[in-house]
């Protein structure tokens, strides 16, 4: 809502500057988003008269003008060609900053001093409603009546400020100047001086129209419909003061009739619409559209109407879309002689649907959507009558007012004691009384209990707490002290699962992975590829088509991030995300879907070069190492099995991950053909379901004592077929070694000369130790050779010489 201060000042005394008033309103709960000084850019622009025009001595295309600007005559050099002696023109004096941000300085043009600038419409951001026709191709030329020396902004009536109110949905009343004035009056403790019609209960002293009948077909969609019949209509432009106020409010002036309806809407909050009375045949119907019904609206567009669009129609046809836009067939034209001016209530839901559907939002539809005061309908027509007479635009003769439904009038009880308790401020009865009086509400009080009559324009005040807010905002929220809750003390603590997620993040970052956060909605195709198309949940209204489904896997989001980084030459990518995936069990969803927490990672490239170390290549073993670290951190035993049917991963470099025989995720290099698609060379990925991991993490650590007897170390290098898994060999070793073989580690893997093709060399370090005694070399040697024999038999291994 744009509020002209000049207009507002007529309705309530204001002794604050625009900025101060904006602060008062904002602190009072009516947020002022912006204060616009309409005269901005015109401060140093005055009206001047051209006294002489001579050719510039040294430039063919320039003219030297002497201009009378009231107090003095100044010289200005211009290139404009549309000027005549005696023309009145806007002159930007030295020091001016024009609306288009051009700063005017004293300058010399080919040796002649120029003390300002003559302005065009473009430079002043004005349209062609200002100035003579000759202004089109050069300097703006004003009528000869323009007073020389006057400030140009003042001449245009721009010496005004406009407050732009950002209204919350609970305060639609402030879409009316009279109610903004009431609000300012309450907050600044002034008395408003409003037109008598600002009292919603005022009645019209006009005869009831005998020839006009209103038929409301749905009492829920329309509570009240009033029509004012006007004769002797005389269409002309509205007066300058009205146009100026409309423009300040952001409404374009059209003619006196339309301008009156808009003016009253802005003033009283009631949208109005003028029909050509002579185009209405029979009764006025308020009804939903018929299936397939059509209407050409005022903008000339032929529209096929939805069946729940509310219409104003006569006996034959639709005349307009209720509350949204009138029809072309009943438009007021210069030939219109009689009017019916409509003031009505329409259900917000209906108006919102229709205006949304057609993409037609207007000042009127906005007010209907937020809810208008159905009590004030007749009063707003009374205000129209006054203005019609003031402007000599027509003669109100009669009216009809069909009332189907009015909201109940409300009384709310406000307790001084309860208010003090809830706000935490010690408040006396008189303080509350003062607030209610400042609000100008009727009330009765006894024992600190106020029985408050809620005016019909304050639909937001329903319960005691609503009035408490009125009290708090009028005495000022700053009066609320700071205290702490007095109840039982509580211990703040993360749940084990919250703690698990936190530690998991820490484990990944400590392993050198960077955390990323991606959108949880993603492309349907990529999600189907890596996740489950069957379970993915599509959005009805996605932001963009490519963000159409809720993810069932984190991988595509991470691959996107990796690819984007590689494309930007960030070649060292090791990233992870912990987040939900969303699993619908039916389509369309009948109940809330499962939200399954996962962790996933992508690594591609290698660590940066370093003068001392070899870079780490981000391959299968890199990510596996990180997962092994994770397993250690949480006391989990992750098992890696050759991936069964993974078409997305490199068949030779991928694994399924199990915990106690339950599948929990996968790890692997992405398939080369997919890598190409994403623009990623040899990226490795993993994804883990977190619920099964969390269920199995080690709860507490039981410490072992340190063995007292020394350990004996033996190395064993074996040549085995390349397919042989190192883990199988180690498992067999452990089995053969029994309790005395405390640890087996692999410390070297080698292929190539002199190992024959198809074979590899594995080197193990075996640690023997007893908890009870010191082992002898002999028994260790014996055990070691038994293990060697066993392995040789089982795997056809050879000892590497």
């Amino acid at each position, binding site marked *: 809502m744009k509020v002209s201060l000049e207009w507002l000042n007529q309705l309530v005394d204001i002794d604050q500057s625009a900025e101060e008033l904006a602060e008062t309103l904002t*602190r*009072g709960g009516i*947020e002022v988003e912006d204060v616009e000084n309409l005269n901005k850019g015109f401060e140093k622009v005055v009206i001047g008269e051209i006294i002489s025009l001579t050719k510039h001595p040294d430039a063919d295309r320039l003219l030297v003008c002497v201009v009378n600007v009231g107090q003095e005559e100044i010289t200005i050099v211009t290139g404009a060609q549309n000027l005549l002696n005696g023309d009145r023109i806007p002159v930007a004096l030295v020091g001016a900053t024009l609306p288009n941000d051009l700063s005017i300085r004293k300058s010399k043009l080919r040796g002649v001093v120029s003390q300002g600038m003559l302005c065009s419409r473009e430079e002043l951001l004005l349209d062609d409603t200002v100035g003579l026709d000759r202004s089109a191709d050069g300097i703006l030329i004003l009528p000869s009546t323009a007073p020389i020396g006057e400030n140009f902004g003042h001449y245009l009536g721009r010496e005004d400020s406009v407050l732009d109110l950002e209204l*919350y*949905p*609970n305060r639609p009343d402030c879409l009316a100047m009279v109610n903004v004035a009431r609000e300012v009056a309450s907050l600044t403790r002034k008395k408003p001086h409003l037109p008598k019609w600002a009292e919603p209960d005022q009645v019209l002293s006009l005869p009831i129209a005998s020839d006009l009948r209103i038929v409301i077909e749905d009492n829920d969609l329309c509570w009240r419909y009033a029509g004012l019949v006007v004769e002797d209509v005389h269409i002309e432009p509205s007066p300058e003061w009205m146009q100026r106020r409309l423009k300040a409010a952001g409404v374009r002036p059209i003619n006196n009739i339309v301008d009156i309806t808009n003016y009253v809407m802005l003033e009283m909050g009631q949208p109005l619409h003028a029909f050509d009375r002579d185009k209405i045949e029979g009764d006025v119907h308020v009804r939903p559209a018929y299936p397939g019904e059509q209407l050409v609206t005022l903008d000339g567009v032929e529209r096929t109407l939805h069946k729940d669009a509310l219409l104003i129609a006569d006996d034959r046809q639709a005349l307009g879309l209720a509350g949204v836009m009138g029809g072309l067939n009943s438009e007021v034209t210069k030939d219109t002689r009689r009017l019916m001016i409509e003031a009505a209530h329409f259900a*917000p839901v209906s108006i*919102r649907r229709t205006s949304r559907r057609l993409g037609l939002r207007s000042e009127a539809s906005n007010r209907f959507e937020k*809810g208008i005061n159905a009590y004030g309908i007749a009063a707003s027509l009374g205000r129209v009558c006054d203005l019609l007479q003031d402007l000599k635009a027509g003669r109100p003769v009669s009216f009809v007012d069909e009332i189907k439904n009015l909201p109940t009038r409300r009384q709310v009880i406000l307790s001084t004691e309860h208010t003090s308790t*809830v*706000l*935490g401020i010690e408040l006396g009865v008189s303080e509350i009384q003062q607030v209610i009086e400042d609000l100008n509400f009727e009330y009765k009080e006894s024992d600190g209990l106020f029985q408050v009559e809620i005016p019909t324009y304050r639909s937001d005040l329903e319960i005691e*707490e*609503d009035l*408490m*807010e009125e009290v708090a*905002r009028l005495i000022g*929220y*700053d009066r*609320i002290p*700071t205290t702490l*809750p*007095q*109840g039982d003390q509580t211990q*703040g*603590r*993360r749940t084990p699962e*919250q703690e698990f997620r*936190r530690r998991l*993040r820490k484990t*990944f*970052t*400590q*392993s050198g992975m*960077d*955390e*990323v*956060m*991606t*959108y*949880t*909605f993603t492309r349907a195709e990529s999600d189907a590829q890596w996740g489950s198309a069957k379970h993915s*949940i599509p*959005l*009805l*209204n996605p*932001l963009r088509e490519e963000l159409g489904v*809720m993810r069932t896997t984190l991988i595509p989001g991470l691959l996107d991030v990796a690819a*984007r*980084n590689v494309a930007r030459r960030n070649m060292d990518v*090791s990233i*992870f995300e912990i987040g939900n995936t*969303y699993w619908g069990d039916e389509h369309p*969803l009948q109940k*809330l*879907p499962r*939200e399954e927490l996962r962790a996933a990672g992508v690594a591609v490239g290698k660590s*940066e070069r*370093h003068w001392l170390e070899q870079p*780490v290549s981000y391959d299968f073993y890199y990510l596996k190492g990180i997962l092994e670290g994770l397993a250690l951190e949480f006391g989990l035993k992750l098992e890696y099995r050759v991936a069964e049917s993974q078409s997305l991963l490199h068949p030779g470099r991928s694994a399924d991950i199990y915990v106690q025989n339950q599948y929990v995720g996968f790890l692997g290099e992405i398939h080369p053909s997919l890598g190409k698609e994403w623009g990623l060379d040899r990226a490795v990925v993993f994804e883990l379901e977190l619920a099964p991991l969390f269920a199995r993490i080690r709860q507490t650590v039981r410490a072992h004592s340190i063995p007292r007897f020394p350990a004996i170390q033996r190395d064993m290098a074996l040549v085995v077929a390349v397919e042989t898994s190192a883990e199988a060999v180690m498992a067999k070793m452990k089995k053969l070694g029994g309790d005395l073989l405390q640890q087996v580690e692999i410390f070297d893997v080698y292929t190539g000369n002199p190992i024959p093709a198809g074979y590899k060399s594995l080197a193990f370090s075996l640690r023997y130790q007893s908890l009870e005694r010191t082992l002898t070399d002999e028994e260790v040697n014996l055990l070691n050779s038994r293990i060697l024999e066993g392995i040789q038999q089982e795997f056809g291994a050879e000892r590497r010489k």
Partner: protein
Amino acid sequence: MWLITKLGWYRENRLSSLSRGGSFCVLSGTSGASVGQGTCPLVPEKDLERVICLKSEILRIREEALRELSELDRPEALQELKVKVLGKKGSLTAMLRQMGSLSPEERPIMGQVVNEVRSQLEQAWEKRSAELERIALEQRLATERIDITLPGIRVPRGHYHPLTQVIEEIEDIFLGMGFQIAEGPEIESDYYNFEALNLPKEHPAREMQDSFYITEEILLRTQTSPVQIRTMEKLHPQLPVKIIAPGKVYRNDDDATHSPMFHQVEGLVVDRGIRMSDLKGILLNFSREMFGESREIRLRPSFFPFTEPSAEVDVSCMLCGGSGCRLCKGTGWIEILGSGMVHPKVLEMGGYNPQEVTGFAFGMGVERIAMLKFGIEDMRLLFDNDLRFLQQF
């Protein structure tokens, strides 16, 4: 000094005094020149000559050894010299063997002299050895100089996403004030997201939030507020309820200051006698923990369907401290969250009797706080995930 004087001392058998003072200058002098002649009534002249001869030999060995010692530059040579002088076949040891030719009176005194020299030499060795070690150490230190400006070995270090950091910081502050962390689903029913929060269907306030719908009844939650209802349903009639609920929320909006997915932290306290001043106290504590000890807050009237009275909360600008700057657009205040007293209808929906309990609730945007805290200008950077951006945190 005369040697004979020394022999007189010997006669008095006060051996210990041999090593004392400067009077035994034959042995302690720097050369044999001070060996004088004279007569000794007790020692035959030829013996005296032999004694003098032996002694000067011992002195020579000593002088020689000390000289060599001072010229040595390698610790190994030190050992070699020691063997050469003091070893089994060393020159000083050989002197001891010659003592057989001395008279029984002379032998102990000569033995004593040899031992004195030995001990002196050993001391000198020790000293020289320490000196050599020091020199060697100095040399080592001089050669072991490295360029300390070269970078160290890289220990991998990943980075938490800035939003994670902010969420954890907020959580920790509220955990410290006795709050629990509650959670709820991101895909939510219309009931929990709107209706139970006093936003019936077609309520104009629903327009403040452009929702992503899945069906007419199921949507991506537009706020963390539904966790208020879920928590109350779960906990009632238990008191107090004291939770925060961090999480992802969604609105159909995408520009420099809006992201279609973003994060909020909701807060809810319900108990007997909760006041709006308690809300102010808790939020003042939070703001000071989060933005600095000297921050102040102010409440402004606002509107949320699920709170009444409602308040927007501003914190004094963390950049200028309240004097007005670019960040706070000259006002000195920065809006950080919305809050209010829980609407009686919402308490009822959660299963509590609004006649008996009151509560307050608040909600803040994590992205906004992260942007303020880290000076991030464009919200989209937070989800673009460029590593050059993320690795700053």
